[in-house]
């Protein structure tokens, strides 16, 4: 258990300690997601971000025009700016990399992480 559901309102995020793990818990548009607070690049505190943002993308089918995408779903590591998609753990900078996600369970208003 890491807290009550009302402690994780929509649009919020915080880092919780579970045993020896530091885990970022994000409420993105009403869904809870949990990621390790550790960037695999240089071990930066990935989830200790001041804000969750979107980012840009460009696609061939739109003639490579810059588009705003993944609004409220992106964190950039505070140390070096490597971007991750919170709902999936996918790294945008290195597509071959995904960081693990923890299962988040909500039971009777209580939030817990499953390992």
């Amino acid at each position, binding site marked *: 258990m890491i807290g009550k559901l009302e402690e994780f309102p929509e649009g919020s995020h915080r880092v919780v300690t579970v045993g020896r793990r530091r885990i970022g818990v994000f409420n993105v548009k009403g869904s809870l997601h949990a990621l390790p607070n550790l960037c695999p*690049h*240089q*071990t930066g505190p990935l989830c200790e*971000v*001041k*804000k*969750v*943002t*979107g*980012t*840009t993308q460009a696609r061939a089918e739109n003639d490579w025009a810059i588009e705003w995408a993944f609004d409220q779903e992106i*964190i*950039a*590591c*505070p*140390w*070096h*700016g490597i971007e991750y998609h919170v709902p999936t753990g996918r790294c945008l900078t290195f597509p071959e990399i995904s960081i693990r996600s923890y299962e988040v369970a909500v039971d009777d208003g209580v939030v817990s992480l499953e390992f």
Partner: protein
Amino acid sequence: MAKRATLDDFVVVDCDVHVHEMPSDLIPYIDMPWRVSLETIAANAAKYLEIGYLDVPAFSPGASGSSFGPVWPSSHEAARVVLTPEAMRAELDTINVDIGILFPDSMLKLATITDEEYAAALARAYNAWLVETWCRPEQGLVGCLVASPQAPEDTAAQIEKYAKHPGVVGVYLPGAAVDPLWGDRKYDPIFKAAEAADFAVLLHSVGIVHPTYPFNTHGFTSGFARHTTSHTLSMMANLVDMVSTGVPERFPNLRICFTEAGVAWVPFVMMRMDRAYREGRAEVSYLTKPPSEYIKSFFYATQPIEEPQTLADMVRLVNLYDGENQTVFASDWPHHDFDHPNKIHQMPFSDEAKRKIFGTNALRMFNMDEHCRRLSLSQGAAAR
């Protein structure tokens, strides 16, 4: 099998950390009439490379960072600053750094200033402030004086003034927008004074767009492209200039270091210059040996260290310029692209090579011991 060394087993000398000098900090140290200018600027506070006095309109757009384009929100904390030596000591402790070599923030753009007297006054004020406020060798914080390329004689006088100061170990040579490049003989007084003072000289650039080569990068469409070139091309241009004008022949005891460009460019320039020397020697007949011999005697700071998929490639790359004895660790703390020492520690260098790169090469470059004591100032110290 011997136990693999940990970071704690090494003395880590960080050859590039940045203090943040606000205009208000320098007001008590700057001469009139320039104090009035700083007081005027201080009333319009800005941070990190956004100081008005170091922004060339239309060429160095500080207000939007290094970008001419749109500004997207991001949680990347790209504008970190450190305002006190206490904070610096605490932060360096968190990244395993024992000794930090202090560089400025805003003064990285000093060479863009067109008024020679103003540039020299700013450098003098910064140096006085740095020495009085920041240089604490007993806490592992020692500094580099800022050289004003606009005023070589004034810079030489500054070097002489602080030559015996225990908290000063080097001279920072601004790379961004410096014109002419650092090989020009107008700078000889600076090198002569640095050699006499037993100071290393360290070139350091910054990302700006400026009509001066190699900063005329307005053709790029992104800050990403400009940042890729701003530091590396500056170091390459200045190294080529310094070798081809014979700086290391005129000042054979001068220790020269190139910072914040990684190290992958070094083998390229070295081999390219050697090749050109085969047919161009008569143009540079004051050189007594191939360029690579000089290049292998310079020092190279690691940050931003290259991050190839195969880390063993870095060992091979450093070996190409005999870099085990000439490569020095740098973090660039607290800037946006700093390196944690772990990044070097992960590379398959031998523990002995790591010991050199993390610390002993830098101690040799600065001629100091691991307690931050300048050996040339120590009683009874053997001459270098």
